[in-house]
């Protein structure tokens, strides 16, 4: 039985003056200090009685240069760690070049929650149900991380290690995420199935991305990322490269997604249902992407 507290348990709020100070503090207190951005995951976990050893919450969102979204036609998009989900949803550059990211961010919780929730927080929290993990993975996101040794780049590939577990080490602070330019003509789509029409966590989430590719027989390449059907996002790359691209081929690719995942039963849904939904929603998402590719403009 989960016994939630009426309020938040004791901790000290710490607001370092610099990244160096923050990383040092976190590294020196590996068990008891945690960084946070919006805190939407952090506070809820603490209140629910998890992370009992936490003594310090380290606010890392007010350090310089974390609150911006920048786009550069050569290097792609950079989203600062303190950028909240609503900013991601509304940003003209994101909408123009990475609409899939805006679509996925929009599906997180509610407007007021998205004022606090950050993209970086969603990634570092590493929940299998995280809505933006798929889009960030398929766009080849690379985290900029500041650790005790200074800055480094941390690709998202290999970043997720289990529910709530990532490649980050004590002292590591993600400061931004960069997405290289998408392959020209890319089209993405996110299908989320919750119990309610909106605002619920995903029972199943399917992110699909497709783009033209002259090296394949089909002239295209498709990728899928599946949420809530394994401890980490399930990725299927390079689908539908064979010709011809028929509805049957899309069905078959959706079937592969179904085979590739190994969900569990939980309060939100059974493994059996989830498997069916991975197939059906993958089919739906792939079709939407395919329609978008044919019509020549990126759909949401």
């Amino acid at each position: 039985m989960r016994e939630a507290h009426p309020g938040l348990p004791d901790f000290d709020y710490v607001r370092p003056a610099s990244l160096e100070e923050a990383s040092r503090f976190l590294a020196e207190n590996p068990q008891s200090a945690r960084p946070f951005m919006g805190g939407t995951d952090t506070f809820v976990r603490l209140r629910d009685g998890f992370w009992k050893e936490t003594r310090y919450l380290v606010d890392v969102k007010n350090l310089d240069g974390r609150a911006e979204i920048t786009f550069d036609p050569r290097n792609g998009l950079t989203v600062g760690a303190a950028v909240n989900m609503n900013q991601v949803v509304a940003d003209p550059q994101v909408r123009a070049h990475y609409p899939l990211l805006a679509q996925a961010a929009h599906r997180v919780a509610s407007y007021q929650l998205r004022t606090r929730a950050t993209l970086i927080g969603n990634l570092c929290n590493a929940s299998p149900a995280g809505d933006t993990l798929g889009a960030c993975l398929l766009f080849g996101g690379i985290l900029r991380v500041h650790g005790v040794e200074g800055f480094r780049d941390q690709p998202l590939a290999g970043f997720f290690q289990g529910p709530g577990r990532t490649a980050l080490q004590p002292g590591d602070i993600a400061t931004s995420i960069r997405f290289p330019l998408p392959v020209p003509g890319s089209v993405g789509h996110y299908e989320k199935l919750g119990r309610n029409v909106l605002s619920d966590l995903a029972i199943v989430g399917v992110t699909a991305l497709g783009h033209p590719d002259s090296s394949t027989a089909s002239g295209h390449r498709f990728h899928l990322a599946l949420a809530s059907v394994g401890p980490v996002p399930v990725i299927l790359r390079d689908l539908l490269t064979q010709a011809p691209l028929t509805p049957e081929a899309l069905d078959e690719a959706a079937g592969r997604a179904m085979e590739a995942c190994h969900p569990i039963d939980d309060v939100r849904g059974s493994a059996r249902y989830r498997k069916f939904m991975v197939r059906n929603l993958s089919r739906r998402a792939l079709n939407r992407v395919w329609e978008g590719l044919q019509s020549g403009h990126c759909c949401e």
Partner: protein
Amino acid sequence: MDTVETTTPRPHQESAAPRPVGESVTRLDAHEKVTGEALFADDLQFGPNMLYARIKRSPHPHARILKIDASRALALPGVKTVVTGQSTPGFIGLYLKDRHIFCTDRARFVGDPVAGVAATTEEIAEKALDLIDVEYEVLPPVLDPEEGVRPDAELLHPELGSYEVANFIFPQPGTNIPNLFKIRKGDVDKALSEAAAVVHHSFRVPHVQHVPIEPHVAIAKVDERGRVTLWGSSQSPFAQRNLIASALGISQADLEVVAPYVGGGFGCKAGVSMEALAVAIAMQVRGRPVKLRLTREEEFYTTFVRQGLVAHFTMACDAEGNLTAMDNKFFWDGGAYAEYGVNMTRGAGYSSSGPYDVPNVRTDSYCVYTNHPVGGPMRGFGQPEMQCGLEQCINRLALEIGMDPMEFRRRNCVKEGSNLVTGMKMHATGIGECLEKAAEAIGWGHKDPPSAPHKRRGKGIAAMWKAPAMSPNAGSSAWIEMSEDGKCTLGLGGQEIGQGTFTVMAQMAAAALGIPYDWVRIASPVDTKYSPYEWQTVASRLTWSMGNAVVAATKDARRQILELVARSWEETPEDLDIVNGNVISAKSGRSSSLKGLVVYGLARPGDQGWIGGPILGRGSFMPTYVTGLDPETGQGERAVVHYTTGAQAIEIEVDLETGRVEVLRGASAFDMGKAINPDLVRVQMEGGLVQGISTALFESLQLQDGVVRNPSFVDYRIATSADAPRDMQSIIVEVPQDDGPFGARGVGEHSMVPTMPAIANAIHDALGIHPGAPPFTAEKVYLAMVDAGLVK
């Protein structure tokens, strides 16, 4: 001004109701609720002297408590007291006193209060809980009501035979059955053997929660002499006064309950749930207010739940489609204590034919103790759960003999004079009209194409009835007091829980007195020390029962005013009337404002002294005609005060790829006798429909080994703004109630009674699959389609 009205001061007996009855005036409480000024219990301020309480709860569904050691908790700085069952040995309960405030020797559900702490902050109180050591001997639990009735089942209340009980509840000592209600009408076996069609189906309706957005909160203070004040979010200030005072062995007169606005109740704030805990703790720290507020999680697993139900129906009709027999068995999952739930069992029994005229009925309705959360009243009081299966069976029976389900219902529904299951004669009712209008509103009989190739559409209908399930002599009272300028304050004890009762009472008072609506104020918050008695704000009974008391009080004031003026004018009261706040005479044409005279009386001519005095009207109402029912047959003269009837028709679309059911439109038609405020009635119907949709599609308290697996909004989902159907039609049918104020009867709960079966019937219409028990989640519907071979 001309008098066009009658000269007798009985305006409410006019066929056209006097203004503002029947008008959709603005809610009295709306302004303060949009500005944030409206006070709810947690908003009241008590100063730095206040202590905070938290409750140590049983982690086991069933266990003997061997030892409680609070010494470590008491040593924590800031902790002022730790209370256990030792200091509250008395029993508490509305219909059956089977519950202690704190557990004494046993804990009977996960969440059962074992000890309570008061400390200077909520955090310290919370920390102290971990320092209370409780030793348990875990006992085998009963987790299913059908298991619980077996002779070899673990006995949860061996003392059942000794509990104090209301005379219409029939506990079975030596079993887990705190109430068994039976109906024996006609010859069911014979009718079944002669029937043209018989259906038999079983349903397992899960537990659900009320989910008011305001969690329970109570603040208690006990003075040095042991007199208690309790502030709380409460639907039942007077019942709480009575039950808590008796449990503690103090006088009702020494317990004052103050009840500000309630942030949603739906039944869970009726009776006593957690309030007595605050009082018991405050007893130990005299002079200091003690606040206890439940977390949302506690709200889910420790307060009253809508009890689960296992129901078996057998139903038969003849070749013409006349219902001939019903054979019902209900097993209610009453939970750990059945102090309130026992009456749901009874209500389901005496309504077990549904709103139909059935000559032969046999019903066994069992309330069963289990080690689940405590069953309590929830909007509909057992009827949504019971009629969920019943109305699906009616549909199946109709289809079985090839009759349109709507036609079948219209043919069989109760009419004035019908001989009901209990032998009571049905009063005039508009159920036929409700069925027709609801069906028509969604284009019954016409199938629209789905909005997409991967969707299927369907329409479903369900009828309903429900009587106020209450003590037969549940009473109401009211007073009305005038201020110098003729405006008035209405004293009442029923609670404003969102349903708009203050507004409706003010409308009735204004109409019955003859003053403008905006001259009426409500004496709120309800305070048992100053407010007149009201049994409880439950059972959709206020408009009818409290309304009668308010009209009586107002008539009393009116009589006093007219007698006074008549004396002064040397006329007879029969020739006078009050119109728009002025006393006028039909005979002499004289007119006078109420100003002054309602407080100071009137001067005799020539400075010869005064007549009259402050006007104070009083009124009370209690039904005196409800009779007992035979324990073996359930037969009696008059089982209930009245039945409110109605119907809902719903159109849905099912997504074949996900199983998700979307409600496209829903039409509700109910017969509330007279809509005192039509728009308030409509918003009740809308809110009830969406709550019904929410329980039909999303909600169930997932119990595993007695543990609630989804005690939070994260996993107990309710309908959001994105789930509500745009197209909701609310149809008012008015067949007057003979003893209702202006002909009114209640309609608050009814709109969520038929929703689950109407949706189930629509799903069947769309897919040809009977979805059975709710919730009809996307998963359940999808897997049913897979199993039926409809999708792969």
